[in-house]
């Protein structure tokens, strides 16, 4: 069918307007759903007595500078009463919770039910409530593993591909479930209590699917592939204001190579595949015929464990030193050199902060 040019313009304008209106309405509907979901989460999982607070929506927005922001929404609420303030933020993806965090000032938050003194009991309650909230059956295996623990001491236990780690501090208790796939660490599910109150929950695992868990490249082969790739690798470095120059020669300290296996995204941002990350320290770096004496350097190589294909190759420069914290605060003359070094570091840090500030200001304009 042919449409004459004069008629096609109004039709195109109409289609454009209709698309904008539909998109706008869909966006508003999603926002309303996410806001309701967040309030339901605060009430039913965090156990907050919303009726005792003035609840204020601070922001509801698409995340800034995030790779997969199109279907995501960051919601922030402030809850205030005479006893204190709660500041809570959630990220939703397709209206499903990805993570939650909350901090509070003043007194203990007003809760529907008082938490137990036993972190295990509280953890079980969170799992039950979260299971009802999401309708997800994936939570049951986590609950089953938790129920094999007798007390909330620092511990790690496994069952099949699922590993639970409980870690406690003076004010906190963390519960962390990690999935592994043929030895590759995948995303997990975790939450944390602060003084018995649920203050964070991460459910990143529900945002991913597994593309392949096949590990055809073992650790030794991964290191060999990395070493082979680095025979033809170079990068540019500069000292001070000098022009950057390419590295002409370096020595790999392969005896100190480290390799870790984890699940990573490949074709898209939601599908995971196993990948080796091999990091090899580098020594005797030459630029031209001069040996470079800069900061400690290594090279990281990412290798897909199911295919052996190299994903990335990246040189890494470390700052600082191997010293641990010195607690001696007495001044002495020998500190002079350290003072100079630290002031140089301070100048670099200050420059970074100023540059970042300028960039952010430009972006936000």
């Amino acid at each position: 069918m042919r449409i004459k040019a004069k008629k096609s313009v109004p039709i195109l304008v109409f289609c454009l307007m209709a698309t904008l209106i539909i998109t706008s309405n869909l966006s508003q509907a999603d926002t309303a759903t996410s806001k309701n979901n967040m309030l339901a989460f605060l009430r039913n999982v965090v156990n907050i007595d919303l009726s005792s607070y003035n609840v204020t929506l601070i922001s509801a927005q698409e995340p800034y500078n995030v790779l997969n922001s199109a279907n995501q929404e960051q919601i922030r609420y402030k809850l205030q009463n005479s006893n204190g303030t709660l500041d809570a933020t959630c990220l939703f993806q397709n209206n499903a919770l990805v993570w939650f965090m909350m901090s509070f000032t003043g007194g203990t938050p007003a809760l529907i039910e008082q938490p137990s003194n036993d972190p295990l009991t509280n953890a079980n309650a969170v799992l039950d409530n979260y299971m009802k909230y999401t309708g997800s059956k994936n939570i049951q295996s986590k609950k089953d593993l938790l129920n094999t623990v007798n007390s909330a001491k620092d511990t790690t236990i496994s069952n099949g591909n699922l590993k639970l780690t409980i870690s406690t501090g003076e004010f906190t208790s963390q519960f962390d479930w990690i999935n592994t796939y043929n030895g590759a660490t995948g995303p997990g599910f975790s939450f944390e209590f602060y003084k018995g109150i649920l203050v964070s929950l991460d459910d990143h695992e529900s945002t991913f699917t597994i593309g392949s868990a096949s590990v055809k490249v073992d650790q030794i082969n991964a290191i060999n592939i990395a070493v082979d790739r680095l025979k033809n690798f170079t990068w540019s470095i500069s000292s001070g204001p000098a022009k950057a120059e390419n590295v002409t020669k370096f020595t790999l300290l392969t005896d100190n190579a480290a390799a870790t296996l984890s699940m990573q995204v490949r074709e898209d941002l939601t599908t995971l595949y196993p990948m080796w990350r091999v990091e090899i320290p580098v020594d005797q770096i030459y630029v031209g015929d001069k040996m470079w004496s800069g900061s400690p350097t290594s090279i990281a190589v990412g290798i897909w464990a199911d295919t052996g294909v190299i994903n990335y190759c990246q040189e890494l420069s470390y700052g600082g030193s191997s010293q641990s914290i010195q607690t001696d605060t007495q001044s002495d003359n020998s500190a002079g050199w350290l003072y100079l070094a630290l002031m140089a570091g301070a100048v670099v840090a200050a420059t970074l902060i100023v540059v970042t500030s300028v960039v952010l200001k430009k972006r936000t304009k």
Partner: protein
Amino acid sequence: MANELGGINGNDIYGMAPAWLHTTNLRTNDAYHNPDSTGKCFIGFEGYSKPWTDTTGYLTYTYQTFGSMFYYFAVVQNYSIHDALNIASQYYIGWSFDSINNLLYQGYSNPYSGKLQIWGDPAITLP
């Protein structure tokens, strides 16, 4: 670098935290969970710093993004230092900041070891 608590001796100041904040009395033991209410917060690396160009292991983000976006959440979205670290960690590292899986907070090694230290009062919000 946060290897040195530092000191103040008259006009002589050494160590990163005293150089920036003119105090040697910041809480160093788990100040992230237990802020000291001094209104001053220092963040620095103990040992070797994590290279900004290194990948965090979550999606394809690097620690450069974590660092700059921590600043964004603290300054532009007006979160406290504690919460800005946490939200940047959720977005770009894939875990809460104090998670056992977050190398910045828990520490890293192989080949170079270090960790991010939070001293003083991370409950503050920048003006």
